[in-house]
């Protein structure tokens, strides 16, 4: 039981700042897992990862190990990865195909929807209250599962807003991601980075909409890339993807300010919209034609005109439409977070689009690239700086305070460099954290 009362938790969030304990206190982290990650809709995976009946993908929801399965009726299920007998994790690897799920300890066998199918020497349970037909003897399904364009979400809370309502304005980013496929279909492909950070999960989530950092943090990579490419490329050489990707990180403050920020209910937000650091990429040959064939020219232009930069679907993942990729947040401890990067193939689009996304992820999201380690370093210095007892217990979120426009439904708009999104995320944080226990 937490030693924080709801009032104390609410008191950690001010209109213009948050108490540093929200990043550093292990008790707060445990409460976040219970009250945010076990209640909100959390991204699990994409249904293309379990295409055939029996396909499974083992992952986590918050700190809970789960397995996403494709059942023989082709429905996708999300099960807690725990044998109903002694509690062993049933699936021991990360992916595969199995017509039945068999526990490796005593050989109890479950169907891919969790139903208990077989117990060795079953007669030992006669009249004992455990066994087939008893729902408690099944592998348990998570309380709620839903999907949006194949993105599968789970909620460990039996009650709460439905997925579509909860996604609110962030749904448009997912719509656009899928519409960018000439067949309206996306699939996960090309592997996954798992980048371990020694910092709190919220630092990554905030950074994705922090437009005041790129020109400082990424000066050494983006700035150097511009210089090297200038020196080496000759007049008339095609501009490589790599330069188009790295150069805009050091655009000026004006660019990032004008990019704009929007925030919606339940903590979601986006930078950009009409333009972003991804909007000046060269067109991919054949791509516009493929979209026009499917949607007509006007609609195709509208699809590509959506230039959302980073969409944050709070708290569990972030999305880039133009780069057709997502980053999934896996909190491990108060100062330990794994960020997974996944790429989508836009079915029906030229392979070059997918390969551009692969190149982007190599350049920006890998543990060995030139950009991510400088973000890592910023989070690391935050995590250690916040331990300092200099009398200042509060983390500032004052930039453009009170300058946002608020629509009737709660949607907020501000300058791209505003702290509005951080304030917004922590109001959502407070709604979750100070309302239970």
């Amino acid at each position, binding site marked *: 039981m937490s030693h924080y009362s709801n009032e104390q938790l609410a008191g950690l969030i001010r209109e213009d700042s948050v108490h540093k304990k929200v990043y550093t206190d292990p008790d707060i982290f445990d409460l976040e897992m219970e009250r945010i990650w076990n209640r909100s809709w959390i991204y699990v995976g994409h249904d293309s990862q379990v295409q055939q009946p029996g396909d499974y993908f083992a992952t986590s929801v918050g700190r809970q190990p789960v397995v996403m399965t494709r059942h023989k009726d082709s429905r996708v299920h999300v099960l807690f990865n725990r044998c109903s007998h002694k509690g062993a994790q049933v699936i021991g690897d990360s992916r595969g195909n199995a017509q039945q799920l068999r526990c490796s300890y005593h050989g109890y066998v479950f169907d891919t929807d969790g139903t208990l199918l077989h117990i060795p020497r079953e007669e030992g349970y006669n009249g004992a209250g455990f066994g087939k037909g008893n729902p408690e003897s099944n592998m348990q399904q998570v309380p709620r599962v839903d999907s949006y364009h194949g993105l599968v979400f789970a909620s460990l809370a039996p009650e709460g807003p439905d997925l579509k309502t909860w996604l609110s304005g962030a749904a448009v980013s997912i719509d656009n991601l899928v519409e960018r496929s000439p067949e309206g279909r996306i699939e996960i492909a090309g592997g996954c980075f798992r*980048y371990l950070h020694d910092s709190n999960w919220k630092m990554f989530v905030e950074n994705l909409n922090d437009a005041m950092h790129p020109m400082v943090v990424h*000066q050494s990579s983006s700035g*150097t890339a511009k*210089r090297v490419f200038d020196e080496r490329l000759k007049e008339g050489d095609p501009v490589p993807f790599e330069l188009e990707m790295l150069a805009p990180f050091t655009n000026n403050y004006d660019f990032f300010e004008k990019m704009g920020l929007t925030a919606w209910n339940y903590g979601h937000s986006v930078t950009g919209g009409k333009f972003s650091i991804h909007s000046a990429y060269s067109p991919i040959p054949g791509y516009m034609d493929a979209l026009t064939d499917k949607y007509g020219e006007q609609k195709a232009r509208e699809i590509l005109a959506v230039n959302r930069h980073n969409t944050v679907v709070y708290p569990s993942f972030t999305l880039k439409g133009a780069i057709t990729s997502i980053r999934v947040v896996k909190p491990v401890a108060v100062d330990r977070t794994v960020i997974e990067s996944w790429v989508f193939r836009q079915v029906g689009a030229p392979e070059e689009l997918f390969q551009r996304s692969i190149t982007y992820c190599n350049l920006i999201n890998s543990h060995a690239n030139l950009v991510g380690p400088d973000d890592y370093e910023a989070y690391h210095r935050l995590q250690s700086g916040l331990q300092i007892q200099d009398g200042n217990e509060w983390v500032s979120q004052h930039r453009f305070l009170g300058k946002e426009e608020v629509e009737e439904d709660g949607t907020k708009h501000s300058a791209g460099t505003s702290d509005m999104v951080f304030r917004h995320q922590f109001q959502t944080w407070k709604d979750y954290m100070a309302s239970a226990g």
Partner: protein
Amino acid sequence: MQTGINSEQDSTPVQTGQPLNPPDPGTLEQFLFHEARLLDEQRWEEWNDLYLEDAEYWIPATPGQPDPKNHISLIYETGLLRAVRVKRYKHPNAFSLQPGPRSVHLVSNVILDNFDETTGECLVTSRFIMLQYRREKQDVFAGSYTHRLVVSGDEIRIAAKRVDLLNCDAPLENILIYL
């Protein structure tokens, strides 16, 4: 073993008409040791000069990864990106390099797997351990190297290097120095 290293590009064929003799195994070993030393001594430009301009430096993100174009990689670079990385090592505002990382590269089990008598090209595999130290933290990386080397007279150049990191698909923190 599938190396994924494309052997059709950018080799420098030496057409003498006479079949070439494979280099002495000790020569190849010394070359790999030399490459490792340049990295540990942070002689980045000299290290980069060992590589042909279009040479691929590749660390796959998945064991047995067949190709670098349709799958993410920890690093996939040719000359242009290597030049960016090498130059960035000296950038005053590369914060993840402050304090700077240090390394020890150990190379062992060197085997000449294939020698092309016409072009003088060698396919050399070896095993490595790399210790990376930065700010009170030491990381261990290990795995295998596959070098495609072009030998011409006394000169050896790298046409491709593939690094199969043992735990390439694990959650990892930063890799700040070339493996």
